[in-house]
């Protein structure tokens, strides 16, 4: 049926077209210009009528097939199920320019019919035409309805064509910059896509384009308001396309994050579908929410558009943690291979490791003063060692200068070192960086635990649920050592007496331990807030608190880490006699040891409140990994809360899902 209709229209149109050219010729000889214009108008009217009929036929076909319910249409328009919408759908796009129908955002059917009409419009030409603005939609409709291109108006799209040939994408790569604890929004990592062009990929990844979804923060708000809005959906999200080397500079260099690259097995046709859809999303505002409808979620939607029939977003209704979306893409069979791109600091650390103590000292001196090159200590060394030291020194002083402008002298020294490196470069080898365990091999993000324990001879059972993400003692495979992020952790305890109560609720619990070395001096810190029980003057009370700590940590041998932090705490406790809200100062110190499949942690901490109430505690915990997502954790501890002393013991089974 559709093919027959089309054939009929195609015939009529070609008749009209030939009539038109005939009239033109005649006009040249016999008629006045005016007459020819009238004839032209008449033929246009006839043509218009035929196109109108073509359009009406197509619209009927759309109605019969209820084409707007097609998953690909719903994906292209970013419709989400929404019970409050009469059609059952609302688009995540919050931007009238993205729709052709007035109520298109909540009406897939009206939008499809309006898009179809827009494709046939003859009163618009060039970049503003629907054929240029909605390329993927246009392609999809043409294919679904077997539209004969001859019935559509011929439209040139210079902007789109220029952009399309600039992007030149044939392959796509998923990019995962690793966890970055020092920025709350990047704690969970991030994902973006890279569009590569084929054969030459090896040589030109730097020039590939990166597709990044993020909040559009162009407004000049004051910073506090700005941050709050960014996290709570107050800003619209948009897609940005920028050269990949900018991302390398941003992540590998400025933020000191390693990057994982996952080339995908999308075919050139699938990549093309994604690229044409991306053009439709240019400068289009989406709803943006940090926890679910975020950067990673939108990339999944792009992949669903690229490969119709793939379902990736369903499982991310509550949270879309970037690494979980990487795992989903892997389960969908899209990941072809993996590549590790170390941060500059990772390479530098590896290079420093390869120097002896004496060479490290020379390196440090050289970085501060290139004249050291003339010293006897240096000239004694072999060319190969000298080259290595110069290479490391150059990188080290560039690391030291990161984020600040160089003085004239520093710039001169830098240049001198680089010139030296050039003269020794024949023997410089690239640093051998140990590739860490892949992040997608890590345990899952949510965790339930069930434990049995005893406190001062009273037995208890506890169940706990943590929404995200990783604790210091958890299975470390795939995670950064010394990086803890717990969010939305709830513990419920049932005492032997049958009493059931909230034991603890952590809203957020971050602990960042980065060991200091001779060359790198990072701080370690923690931030922890929520509700927890504290025995105060003989009574077990639920308290609310905000606790933060700032300090340092040091490596002990290969697998040990010692830390000490000064802490501050603000606690609301009904057991406090004068004021319920009291500040406290304290110390938190500990020792963390990784034994392959097991991690142990010894903690010594305490604090003293302004009202002289004080607490000290010692605890030992050991987690035994049974399988990737299963572990058993043993905890013993002793607490002293001024006049109350108690011991606790518990054994927990923990499952990540």
């Amino acid at each position, binding site marked *: 049926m559709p093919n027959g209709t089309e054939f009929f229209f195609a015939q009529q149109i070609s008749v009209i077209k030939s009539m038109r050219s005939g009239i033109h010729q005649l006009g040249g000889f016999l008629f006045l210009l005016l007459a020819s214009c009238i004839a032209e108008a008449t033929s246009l009217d006839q043509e218009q009528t035929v196109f109108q009929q073509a359009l009406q036929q197509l619209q009927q076909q759309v109605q019969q097939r209820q084409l707007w319910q097609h998953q690909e249409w719903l994906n292209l328009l970013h419709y989400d199920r929404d019970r409050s919408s009469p059609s059952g759908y609302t688009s995540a796009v919050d931007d009238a320019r993205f729709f052709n129908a007035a109520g298109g955002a909540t009406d897939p059917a009206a939008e499809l019919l309006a898009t179809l009409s827009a494709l046939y419009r003859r009163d618009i030409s060039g970049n503003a035409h629907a054929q240029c603005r909605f390329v993927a939609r246009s392609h999809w409709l043409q294919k679904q309805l077997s539209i004969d291109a001859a019935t559509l108006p011929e439209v040139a799209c210079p902007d789109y064509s220029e952009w399309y040939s600039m992007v030149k994408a044939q392959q796509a790569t998923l990019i995962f910059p690793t966890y970055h604890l020092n920025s709350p929004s990047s704690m969970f990592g991030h994902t973006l896509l890279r569009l590569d062009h084929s054969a030459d990929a090896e*040589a030109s990844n730097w020039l590939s384009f990166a597709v*990044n979804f993020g909040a559009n923060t*162009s407004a000049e708000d004051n910073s506090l308001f700005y941050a709050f809005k960014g996290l709570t959906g107050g800003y619209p999200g948009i897609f940005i396309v920028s050269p990949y080397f900018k991302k390398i500079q941003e992540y590998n260099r400025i*933020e000191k994050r390693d990057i994982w690259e996952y080339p995908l097995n999308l075919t050139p046709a699938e990549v093309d579908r994604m690229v044409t859809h991306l053009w439709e999303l*240019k400068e289009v505002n989406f709803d943006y929410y940090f926890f679910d409808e975020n950067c990673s979620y939108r990339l999944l939607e792009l992949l669903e558009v690229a490969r119709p029939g793939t379902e990736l977003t369903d499982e991310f209704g509550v949270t879309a943690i970037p690494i979980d979306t990487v795992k989903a893409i892997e389960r969908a069979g899209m990941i072809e291979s993996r590549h590790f791109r170390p941060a500059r600091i990772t390479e530098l650390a590896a290079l420093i490791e390869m120097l002896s103590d004496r060479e490290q000292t020379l390196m440090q001196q050289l970085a501060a003063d290139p004249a050291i090159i003339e010293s006897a200590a240096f000239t004694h060394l072999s060319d190969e060692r000298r080259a290595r030291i110069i290479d490391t020194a150059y990188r080290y002083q560039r690391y030291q200068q990161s984020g600040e402008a160089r003085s004239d002298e520093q710039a001169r020294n830098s240049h001198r070192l*680089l010139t030296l490196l050039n003269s020794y470069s024949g023997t410089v080898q690239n640093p051998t960086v140990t590739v860490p365990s892949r992040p997608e091999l890590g345990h899952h993000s949510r965790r339930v635990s069930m434990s049995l324990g005893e406190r001062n001879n009273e037995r208890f059972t506890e169940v706990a649920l943590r929404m995200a993400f990783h604790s210091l003692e958890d299975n470390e495979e795939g995670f950064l050592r010394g990086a803890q992020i717990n969010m939305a952790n709830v513990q419920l305890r049932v005492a032997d007496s049958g009493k059931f109560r909230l034991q603890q609720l952590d809203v957020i619990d971050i602990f960042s331990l980065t060991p200091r070395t001779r060359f790198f001096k990072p701080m370690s810190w923690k931030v922890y807030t929520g509700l927890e029980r504290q025995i105060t003057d003989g009574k077990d009370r639920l308290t609310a608190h905000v606790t933060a700590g700032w300090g340092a940590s040091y490596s002990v041998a290969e697998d040990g880490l010692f830390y000490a932090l000064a802490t501050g705490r603000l606690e609301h406790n009904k057991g406090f006699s004068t004021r319920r809200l009291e500040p406290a100062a304290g110390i938190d110190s500990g020792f963390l040891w990784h034994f392959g499949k097991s991690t142990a942690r010894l903690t010594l901490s305490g604090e003293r409140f302004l009202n002289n109430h004080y607490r000290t505690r010692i605890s030992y915990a050991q987690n035994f990994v049974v399988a990737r997502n299963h572990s058993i954790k043993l905890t013993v501890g002793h607490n002293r809360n001024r006049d109350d002393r108690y011991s606790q013991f518990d054994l927990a089974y923990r499952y990540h899902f």
Partner: protein
Amino acid sequence: MKKLIAGSILLVSSSAALAVAPGGPDCGWGNMLFDGQSGLGPHFIASSTNGTSGNASFGMTSGTNGCSSDGTLTYGGSSLVSNMMDEFSEDVARGHGEALNAVAVSMGVEQADRALFAKVAHDNFNTIFPNENVTAQQVTASLNALMKADSRLAKYAV
């Protein structure tokens, strides 16, 4: 819940405005700056949303290394060199690397000639980067002159 968690993250994070990178439109090699601070708080705003500021860009770019560059990234022009001059200078010094490759590709150097391009650049490091004040424009001009003087690379020179 979403707002509650978000709000408490805010509570515990200090805030700081992003530092504005110095550097004029044609600043020298020694003035390049990789802006970004570590620590809790700083850098929070730009990254809190993995966001971007300013005009929504779709393949257009401006410098992140403190040397501002104008608008569109035209491959082959000095703006590409200016955007990656620091990495490029390091690669030229070593004689290999991705920035060196990217500049070669952007100048239209075909795969078969890229090793030669790298060698010519490397051997002439002192000509391309004579001192710390050299600008991206001067670097691009020197590269072009060197290519012109080489029989195989001359066809890529502008």
